[in-house]
């Protein structure tokens, strides 16, 4: 009886959040410097054409929505997992230095001029390599006697973030005007991505990440009691920590290397959803994924419409809107 009631409630949450995601995606398709009404979209969906509107919809807006879905979801569930694992509400995907590593990789490749020689794919690839290097470094620094020390992860991660951001500033100081523009543009983050291979990769990685995270949802619930109690409940704590660290690292590394540093999503969405649905990871993961996707797509829509045709960096919107809404929610709920 009870169990059914809980599942019904969870399904309602997911259903409502799914509807919101669809609504926001549709809105994002319609609005922009060229407004396209919904009726038009439906007729364009049914038959391909080479009109300007078709091109705007399917080559510009749709890819951004799909990227927003994948990256918003990936960053949000990384935030949920890390906050649960560290039992620290201030941890977010960028805390562990992964974004710093990715940014450093990208900056180095911009300065070395790799993007001019190897094309657009070089930036995400070098970003991902940077992220992987940091993941390995933090992982090995934090491991003692085959035990992954959670506090170690946090401290080394934060230090590596500082070191890499200083290195980036150093590189920016000595780079030329053209490169500087490229670096700043990338660091501010954007969902614009013309490469369909990267878009597909992002979608696959984040959905697989969500599925893998679900296999560890009970372990995460137990870990909320602390490592010792989780172990007393029969959880293999060491394996769980390692798998979850690698999982969040890959999700974050993927997001940052493709879209740049889009802040706040991974910090705010988990908190917001926790206020709404409670602390159970089995609903928190799915709900955060959907909410993160909606939030990022909405922010991106605002970023490109507020002062159209000029586009604002999406990170600015996630910060300003996300932060204010969150402060409002906190004061309202508490």
């Amino acid at each position, binding site marked *: 009886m009870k169990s059914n009631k*809980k599942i019904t409630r969870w399904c309602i949450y997911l259903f409502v959040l799914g509807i919101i995601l669809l609504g926001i995606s549709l809105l994002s398709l319609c609005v922009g410097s060229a407004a396209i009404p919904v009726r038009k979209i439906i007729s364009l969906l049914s038959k391909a054409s080479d009109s300007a509107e078709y091109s705007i919809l399917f080559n510009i807006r749709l890819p951004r929505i799909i990227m927003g879905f994948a990256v918003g979801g990936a960053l949000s569930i990384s935030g949920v997992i890390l906050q649960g694992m560290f039992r620290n509400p201030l941890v977010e995907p960028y805390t562990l230095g992964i974004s710093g590593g990715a940014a450093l990789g990208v900056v180095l490749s911009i300065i070395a001029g790799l993007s001019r020689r190897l094309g657009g794919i070089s930036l995400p690839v070098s970003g991902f390599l940077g992220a992987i290097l940091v993941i390995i470094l933090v992982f090995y620094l934090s491991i003692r006697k085959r035990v992954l020390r959670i506090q170690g992860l946090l401290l080394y991660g934060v230090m590596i973030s500082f070191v890499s951001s200083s290195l980036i500033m150093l590189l920016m100081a000595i780079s030329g005007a053209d490169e500087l523009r490229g670096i700043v543009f990338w660091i501010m983050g954007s969902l614009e991505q013309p490469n369909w291979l990267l878009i597909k990769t992002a979608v696959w990685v984040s959905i697989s990440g969500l599925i893998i995270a679900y296999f560890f949802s009970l372990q995460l619930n137990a870990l909320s009691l602390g490592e010792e109690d989780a172990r007393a409940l029969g959880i293999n704590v060491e394996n769980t920590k390692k798998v979850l660290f690698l999982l969040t690292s890959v999700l974050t590394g993927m997001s940052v290397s493709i879209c740049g540093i889009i802040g706040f999503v991974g910090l705010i969405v988990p908190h917001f959803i926790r206020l709404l649905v409670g602390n159970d990871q089995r609903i928190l993961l799915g709900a955060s994924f959907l909410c993160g996707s909606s939030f990022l797509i909405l922010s991106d829509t605002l970023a490109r419409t507020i002062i159209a045709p000029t586009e604002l960096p999406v990170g600015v919107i996630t910060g300003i809107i996300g932060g204010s809404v969150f402060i409002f929610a906190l004061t309202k709920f508490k």
Partner: protein
Amino acid sequence: MMNTLLEIKGLTCGYDARFFIQEINFSLEEKEFVGIIGPNGSGKTTFLRAITRFLKSQKGTVIFKGRDVRQIGFKEFARKIAVVSQNQPVNDITVEEFVLLGRIPHFEKMQFLETAHDFEIARKVMSLTQTSKFKDRLMRELSGGERQLAFIARALAQEPQLLLLDEPTTHLDIGHQVAVLDLLKKLNRECGLTVIIVLHDLNLASEYCQRLVLMREGRIYKAGHPDEVLSYQIIEEVYKTVVVVEKNPISLRPYVLLVPEEERRARSKKYGKEE
């Protein structure tokens, strides 16, 4: 007929290279109620952690029902032995959700949701521990005594054969201390649950435990019936303080009285001799 539930042979373990407990030999029969006592830092908690394998043993073995515990998987272990540890963190979940976490060891491999059976067990242990009445409140809103009962309920939801408790009565008033221990005694008597409990309060230990294990500097100093362990000579030797041991006129168990230093001085002056 008595069956051996737990057998510990030559157990030595500790943190890093320092040995906190050394050469522990101890065996526990089914349905026993054993108290572990000893001064701070004598290795009581380490002893429990060694049984639960949270600390790896450097030497010796722990045998549970004829099997070396190192050969028992995490989940199976949690279905046999439950722990109520000290200084547990609390979080923003309701008491019922908290108790249901105790069912995790019983989940099948691909199971994500509690079954009706899990809810039934949770309901049962909550009514047993009298936590049903506040099952919808958040853990952090509970008082110390209520919280301790919720922790015991979660441990019972694991349906263990052996329950280990680390100072469950610290920070509780005497009413709640007695309530917690009465409950454990009832579970021991009526449900056949074997209990090992670490206690600081020698009088509670004396009243409730069939057998006491007194630890000093990581070793078992004395083990046996409270009458044998709680003599004033032994307590003064181990705790380095002066006590008077009397008999509780109702339960006939020993009880320990403290003697403050001022009183000691006054007495020795009165009788004109040094202690």
